[in-house]
């Protein structure tokens, strides 16, 4: 319905009347750093209870296994930064593409691991039973990380809540997959990669559905 010009004055009066001083938001890199610092704290806590000599032995045996966690960690950092950028109303949707190169490294390194498990004898690839634990770990860890990230993102005012929440979900799934390295005694196999991709997609989808609604409610 068309609004008469005086309705602008009425709205301005209303908005002015309810004006309260606000704390300016820190920059997106700074906010992303705060979330990443909490993930790092969690990583130290998990490292303390993990079988560190076994992790070290695995990495010495196959140094290129580092590539996959490096890819997932980079994805986590870039996706978190992209989510905080997207939480501002004036930022371009193209920020959502930022984590993709790191995600390609992550997927590529995991795929290379699969090849090795076919070519090198005596490697123990994960079977379907083992992969159930991976999904549970990634999903279970993503829930608190997502909750925290979404609460932080709500302080912004995104105009693209679904996209912002999906990118946030990507950051959380990548963080969980990175931390999984402490408890993942298998070399990558085709089932393993498929299961990881499935778990990451599940977390992104859940974030987009529930987180998107949460951010939309905050922005309305």
């Amino acid at each position: 319905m068309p609004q008469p010009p005086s309705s602008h004055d009425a709205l301005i009066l209303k908005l002015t009347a309810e004006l309260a001083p606000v704390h300016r938001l820190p920059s997106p890199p700074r906010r992303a750093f705060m979330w990443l610092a909490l993930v790092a704290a969690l990583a130290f806590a998990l490292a303390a209870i993990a079988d560190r000599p076994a992790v070290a032995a695995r990495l010495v045996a196959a140094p290129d296994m580092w590539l996959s966690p490096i890819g997932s960690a980079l994805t986590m950092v870039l996706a978190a930064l992209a989510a905080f950028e997207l939480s501002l109303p004036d930022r371009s949707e193209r920020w959502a593409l930022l984590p993709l190169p790191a995600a390609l490294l992550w997927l590529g390194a995991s795929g290379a691991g699969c090849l090795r498990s076919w070519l090198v004898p005596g490697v123990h690839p994960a079977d379907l039973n083992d992969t159930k634990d991976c999904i549970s770990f990634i999903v279970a860890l993503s829930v608190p990380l997502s909750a925290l990230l979404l609460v932080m993102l709500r302080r912004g005012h995104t105009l693209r809540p679904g996209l912002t929440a999906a990118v946030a979900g990507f950051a959380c799934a990548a963080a969980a997959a990175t931390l999984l390295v402490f408890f993942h005694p298998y070399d990558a196999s085709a089932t393993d990669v498929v299961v990881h991709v499935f778990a990451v997609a599940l977390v992104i989808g859940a974030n987009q559905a529930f987180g998107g609604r949460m951010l939309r409610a905050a922005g309305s």
Partner: protein
Amino acid sequence: MVAAQAGDRAAYAALLRDCIGVIASVARRQRVPPDRIDDVVQDTLLTVHRARQTYDPTRSFTAWLAVIAERRAIDLLRKTGRQALREVHAPIAYERHADESVATRDTGGDARLGKAVADLPERQREAVQHLVLQERSLAEAAAATGRSAGSLKVNLHRALKSLRARVGQTG
């Protein structure tokens, strides 16, 4: 805007008033219909209010405002497009809408449906014949049968219900 972030109401009111012209010109550039430009202005002013903590004084306020106005204009155009697609004015379309579960099923031929129609009570059969088989409008059917439009509608509903039950059972 920096003064508004600190709670200065006079500066805020002046700023919002200055925003109206910028928002309206952005909306026109996005080809928002003239009668909806005020909607974009109001949506954008509300967004500016709710997002004021996100404004970074090191960046241009006009650029910040223009991007928000542009997105609000696009949102409005999308919403208007969806509404136009969804809201079709066709009051008796529902009455004539074929029930796909019945229409697409192979029920054994027209003979069974014809018999089912023939077995209907007179008023219901009349409604089916005029409104469905002869594709008449409610007004035409009312004139032809001497019944009221309301009565025809009720009888058509009842007829469709009993046909659906009967053909569905045997089909």
